[in-house]
């Protein structure tokens, strides 16, 4: 076949305007294969970056939570952290320097615990004991920062835990003035007061004295839950707004808390008041009784003497003696000087006890044992259970059979500075020089230890 002069037309080419076909197809770039390890690291870095960024933003909300917790902790309308509202009010007033009304209605143990928690500066000296120590105050101790932590009906547990509380808050005082009550050495349940904080005492025994008890670390999750509970926070806000700037404070249920600063002359009050130093000032009528009235009260106390923590007290408990010794050593190890005080009983009452020594065997052993202990361990001891051992002590120095007033204290206690000075100078009186009576004089009997042959007892000078 002859070759055609014209070439065969090429097939029509469809023109795609603007379509990918109009331009030569670009080579698709193949994705570079990334090392899986690099991919993993990239993913990890991305997650970390965004994780940290998100966490940081959430952290910016933390101040809201901190505010909630701090507010709930400080206002604490239910007293979960700061103690009940009424004791808190009392302590607040005392720390502001006020004497507080309505002593009889106070929960003294709660007040003492809250004081230990809230007092901003460690007192130089504290007093512990039962109501028989409550007349020790800043004047007769001679210490400006003295605080009386005694509580009515205190047993050995109250005594020890009051001091222990101060230590746990890092506020161990320099001086511990301990008015020893005889039942401190009685090991029976009868010696214990139901109001004492048994759990705290067990904690003290277990943690400090290493005495095994059934103490268990309390479950504080409930408290923690309250702090994290917005409903509790709202309750605290309501309470705070309601009571802010109010003269009378109400409790959680809206009842008025009747503890207020003493108005007028504290020595002329019709009810007993708690002084700002923790001591108690009885009402004016109780303080100004006649000798006969006081003796009547002392006579009334004769029959119920043993019922005050000493029912069946025939001998000193070895356990309590050990506890006492351990406690004194513990206090000394905390840098505290222990000064013991024996507050006297009314002469009429003591005289009565002497008539039935068989019923008070344990009681009559306490003082002599203590004196021996103090002599052996160079512990200052002042006063005596036996009023006859205190020179110049009058019946009018008492409020009743059990409680010796400030004038009586002044007759046997020279004040803490003097006691410390005597201790330092080695001029303390020998404890064994005082011989309290433990039975009625028997002309046929040999003179008891401490008694002079003519029947007179050696008296202690103030």
């Amino acid at each position, binding site marked *: 076949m002859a070759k055609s002069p014209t070439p065969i037309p090429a097939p029509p080419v469809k023109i795609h305007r603007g379509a990918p076909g109009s331009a030569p197809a670009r080579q698709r770039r193949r994705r570079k294969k990334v090392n899986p390890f690099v991919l993993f690291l990239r993913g990890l870095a991305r997650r970390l970056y965004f994780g940290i*960024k998100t966490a940081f933003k959430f952290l*910016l909300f933390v101040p809201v939570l901190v505010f909630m917790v701090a507010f709930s902790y400080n206002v604490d309308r239910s007293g979960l952290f700061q103690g009940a509202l009424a004791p808190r009010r009392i302590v607040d007033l005392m720390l502001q320097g006020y004497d507080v009304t309505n002593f009889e209605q106070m929960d003294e143990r709660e007040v003492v615990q809250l004081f230990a928690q809230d007092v901003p500066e460690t007192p130089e000296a504290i007093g512990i004991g039962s109501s028989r120590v409550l007349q020790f105050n800043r004047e007769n101790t001679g210490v400006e920062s003295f605080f009386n932590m005694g509580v009515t009906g205190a047993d050995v547990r109250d005594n020890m835990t009051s001091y222990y509380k101060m230590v746990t808050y890092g506020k161990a005082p320099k001086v511990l003035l301990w008015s020893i009550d005889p039942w401190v050495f009685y090991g029976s349940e009868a010696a214990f007061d139901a109001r004492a904080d048994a759990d705290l005492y067990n904690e003290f025994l277990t943690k400090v004295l290493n005495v095994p008890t059934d103490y268990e670390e309390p479950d504080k999750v409930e408290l923690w839950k309250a702090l*994290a509970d917005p*409903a509790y926070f709202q309750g605290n806000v309501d309470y705070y707004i309601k009571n802010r700037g109010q003269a009378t404070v109400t409790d959680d249920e809206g009842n008025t808390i009747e503890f207020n600063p003493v108005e007028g002359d504290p020595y002329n009050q019709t009810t007993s008041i708690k002084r700002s130093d923790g001591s108690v000032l009885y009402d004016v009528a109780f303080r100004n009784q006649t000798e006969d009235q006081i003796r009547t009260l002392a006579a009334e106390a004769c029959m119920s003497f043993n019922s005050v923590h000493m029912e069946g007290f025939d001998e000193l408990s070895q356990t309590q003696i050990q506890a006492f010794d351990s406690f004194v050593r513990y206090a000394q190890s905390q840098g505290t000087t222990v000064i013991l005080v024996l507050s006297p009983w009314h002469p009429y009452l003591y005289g009565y006890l002497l008539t039935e020594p068989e019923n008070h065997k344990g009681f009559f052993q306490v003082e002599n044992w203590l004196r021996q202990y103090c002599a052996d361990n160079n512990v200052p001891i002042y006063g005596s259970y036996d009023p006859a051992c205190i020179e110049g002590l009058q019946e009018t120095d008492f409020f009743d059979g059990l409680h010796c007033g400030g004038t009586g204290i002044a007759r046997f206690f020279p004040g803490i500075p003097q006691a410390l000075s005597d201790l330092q100078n080695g001029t303390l009186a020998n404890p064994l020089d005082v011989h309290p009576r433990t039975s009625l004089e028997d002309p046929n009997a040999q003179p008891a230890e401490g008694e002079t042959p003519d029947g007179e007892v050696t008296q202690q000078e103030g």
Partner: protein
Amino acid sequence: MTITWEQVLAFLCEDQTMAITSLLFLAFFAAVALINYALPRVLRPYFLLAASYGFFCYDPVNRPLVWVIAAATVLTWLCGLIIGKVRAKPVRVLALAASVGFGIGILVYYKYWNLLADTVGGSILSHRENLLAPLGLSYFTFAAMSYTIDVYKRRCRVETNLLHYALFVSFFPTLINGPIERYPQMRPQIQKSRRFSYGRCAGGAFRMLWGYTKKMVLADNLSHYVSLVYGDVGSMSGPNLVAATVLFAVQLYMDFSGCCDIALGAARILGYDLIENFQSPFEARTFNDFWRRWHISMTSWFRDYVYFSLGGSRCAPWRHYLNIVIVFVCSGLWHGADWRYLAWGLFTGLLAAFGVMTARARQRINRYNPLYRMGWFKVFWQCLFTNALFCLTLVFFASAIYNTDPFAVYGSLLQGWDGLTGSWAQVSNLIYSSGIDGRLPVVLLFGCFVVFAAEHKGRSVARWIRQQVWPLRWTLYYGMAAAILFFAAFGQSAFIYQQY
């Protein structure tokens, strides 16, 4: 003081139920979100599925009922598979019927069995004590049914991955209050999980906070007054009943939309966009418009699967009106086995049908209304009238919730009025005595104003907040946190719509 992890867990888990407003839920959600983003994207749906079942089973009451949600999932998935793969129409119809029948069957069983038993009686229909519906029954059955219907109607492709589908049915943020999801919307999100986006998460977290504020600060506090009035309707005066009904509408909105905000925010954090359930309903100017903005996922469900199936508006007028009424009656039944819900549905349906019936006539009349020449007045009046109608229907709804006689409420609405001052005194005194005192009334008023202003014209607060400058943003964050801390009503965690 040392606090152990065991104690923290014990603290978090002391409640038997994981209420959405509880610390436990927040801890659970935080852990799920953290793990979700730590996992490779392909594994995330499976983890979320496990988390959803964990959420469902946390409540001991729900544990024995887990088979219901599992069965609903498997059965509807199988039916969907048959419908999608088989071409023979009878088989497809049968599969659809099985799927819808099962969904409606379990709904009827758990919600209406005792009502039917009490009404009909007999040896078969005996009353069953302790017949408790599983969590989110109304929501997950409707979601599952919508899938098979969509597959049947070729609006949705068949899902071959059972676990992906199971996540759609049981996705835990939607289990409590919805919204009722549709699979075409969820499918791409499940199949390809989103990468972590800080902006999305921040928006989602804000939306959750927004929801908590609406629920715990506004709704729960308003409920004090509403429950006081509706709890003792007999001794309440007209002003209080009117005020309580209006406040119930606000409470219901804050409660329900608040929970939806929490669900949407939570889902957003996990990388999922859910259906918006509300679009400024109180700004609606007609009654029908209102129902296009309120509980959108449910109303659109009924619209798509009931109303359109019945012929919608493309039929004779009387049939159109009947269709509207039927849809609202179904909606009433969906809420529970109580004649008051049924009455509410009927009443609402009749009002909606009447609105459609008179729409043209009203438009003609409106042209001659001189007051309507003022645009703002027209808008105000129409909104007011629409909301008043809504409140009027809500009396049935509130009566069902507080178990009171709706007709007693209607009968007392106009009684006891004592002038403007006297009536206001009655209302304000009762509001104060209900516990809404101190600064709370101001907070509630201001809070409602802020919510309505922020959600004006259906604005998405999650997106809106991301567009604001940081001082405003953080002021709002702290403001809401403080509002919850100071004013939220704690311990009232149940949502109204949780029971449906």
